[in-house]
C-alpha cells in the first residue's frame, strides 16, 4: 500500500511536469518542470531499489545537465517562444491518433503483458554491486564512454570559442 501511494504520488509529479513542459511557452519554465520530472524519477528509481542510480540521477541529470540548460537560457536571455501555427490536419489527425495509441498501449500493458508485481527495493543496486559490474564486466564500454566525454569537452570548447578573426578585434587595414 505504502509502495503504491509513493509510486502514484511521484508518478503524478512526473506526469504533471512532462505536460507542463509542453504547455509552458517560456523555456525556463519548461526547464524547471523537467527538473521536477527528473527529481521524482529519482524517487521512482529508489522504489525499484536502484540506490546508486538515484544519487547519480540527482547529481548528473538534475544537478549538472539541467544546470547547463538553465545557464544557457540565462546567458542567451531566451524569451517566450513564438507559437507555431500548427496545421489543422495535424490537430484533426494527431489528437485522435495519439489517444488511440495511448489506449492501445495501456490496454496491452495492463491486461496482456503477464508482468509480475515488483516489490519495493526489488533489486539492490548498491554502489558496491554497480561498481563490480562497471569496472569488471563493463570495463571496455566504460573506458569508451570516458573517451566520448573527453571528445565532448573538446568539442564544446572548440564550438563556443569565438573564431580567430573576431577574437582579434576589428581589423585596421580593411
Amino acid at each position, binding site marked *: 500500500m505504502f509502495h503504491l501511494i509513493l509510486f502514484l504520488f511521484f508518478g503524478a509529479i512526473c506526469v504533471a511536469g512532462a505536460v507542463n513542459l509542453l504547455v509552458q511557452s517560456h523555456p525556463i519554465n519548461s526547464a524547471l518542470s523537467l*527538473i521536477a520530472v527528473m527529481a521524482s524519477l529519482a524517487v521512482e528509481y529508489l522504489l525499484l531499489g536502484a*540506490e546508486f542510480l538515484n544519487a*547519480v540521477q*540527482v*547529481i548528473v541529470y538534475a*544537478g549538472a545537465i539541467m*544546470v547547463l540548460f538553465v*545557464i544557457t537560457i*540565462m546567458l542567451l536571455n531566451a524569451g517566450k517562444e513564438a507559437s507555431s501555427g500548427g496545421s489543422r490536419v495535424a490537430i484533426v489527425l494527431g489528437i485522435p491518433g495519439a489517444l488511440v495509441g495511448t489506449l492501445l498501449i495501456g490496454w496491452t500493458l495492463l491486461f496482456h503483458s503477464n508482468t509480475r508485481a515488483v516489490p519495493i527495493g526489488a533489486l539492490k543496486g548498491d554502489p558496491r554491486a554497480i561498481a563490480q559490474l562497471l569496472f569488471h564486466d563493463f570495463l571496455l564500454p566504460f573506458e569508451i564512454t570516458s573517451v566520448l566525454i573527453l571528445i565532448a569537452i573538446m568539442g564544446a570548447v572548440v564550438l563556443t570559442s569565438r573564431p580567430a578573426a573576431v577574437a582579434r578585434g576589428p581589423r585596421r587595414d580593411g
Partner: protein
Amino acid sequence: MSITTFVIISLIKSLAVIFVMMTAAAYSVWLERKVSAHIQNRWGPTKVGPFGLLQPLADGVKFIFKEDLVEANVYKPLYIAAPIIAMMFALTSIAVIPFGNWVEVGPWGTYLQVTDLNIGLLVILGSTSMGVYGVALAGWSSNSKYSLLGGLRASAQMISYEVSLGLALVGVLIMAGSLSVRDIVNAQRHLHWNIFFQPVGFVVYLISAYAETNRAPFDLPEAESELVAGYHTEYSSMKFAMFFVAEYCNMVTVACLATLMFFGGWLGPVGGPPIVQALLPVIWFCLKVFFFMFLYVWVRWTLPRFRYDQLMAFGWKILLPLALANIVVTALIVAWRG
C-alpha cells in the same frame, strides 16, 4: 521497530537537527562578526547580551520586521521560489551527517544521525549541486543586471568547483571502501585520520569548499565593489535572510564534511561514566567543526579577492589536475598494498 516508532524517532531527530543547524548558522554569523572585528582591532557586537551573544536573535527580529519589497518587474513565481530552493537544499544535506556515536535514552537507542545511507556522501553532493538552482534562479528572476551577472558567476563557479570537490573526496572513498559517512569515520579509528594519508586531497577539498560556498577569497558572485550584492541584490527582509542562512548552513555542512572525511569525525579520547562517554564524541565533533568555521572567517578577513578569470583558471587548470593525480596515486598505492 514498528513503523510508528520509526516515524516518531525520525521526526524528532529531523526537528532537532534542523534546530541545531539553524542555531549553528546564526552563531556562525556572530562568530564571523566577532572574529573579523578582532582581526581589525575593533570590538564587534557587544550591546545585546553578554559578549553580544544575543545579537543573532536581534538580527532575526530585525529581518522579520523589515519591509518585504517585491520589485515591479521581477518574474514573481521564481523570485519567491529561489530563496526557498536555496534554503531547502542547504538543510537537506545535514540529514546524513553523523554528530556522534550510538546513544541510549532509556529503552531506546539511536545513532546521533538522522539516517545512515549507503549512498550518504552522494546525497550531500547531490543536494549541494541542486542548491545551484536557488542562486541561478534568483539571479535570473530579479530582472536586474547585477543580479544576472552575480547569478551567472555563482552558478558557473559552483558547478566548476563541484567537480574538484567531488574528486578530492574520491581518495578517501578508495581508502574507506564505502560511501556511507559512518563507515568512512569508522575506518579512521586509532588516529588513522585521513588527513595524514590524503594531504593533497584535503587541501583541494578545502579550497574547493570555499569556492563552492561562495566565500572569500572566491566571493565573486557577491563582490560588493562591482556587483552591489550579486544574485541577492533585489532581495530584502526574510527572503534575503533565507539566502543568508542558506549560505551559512552550507558553510556548516562543508565544515562537517571536512571533519568527517579527513579529521576522524567524532573520534577522540573517550572515558569516564556512561553519560560522559556518550557526550564526549559530540564535543570532539563540535570542536573540530568549530575549528573549520574559525578557519573560514580567518581566511575571509586575511586574503584578497581573486579575479574571475583567475578563479576559473585556478579551478580547472590547477585543482582539477591535482585532484586527478591524487586519485591515481592513491589507487596505485592501495592496489600495490593489496
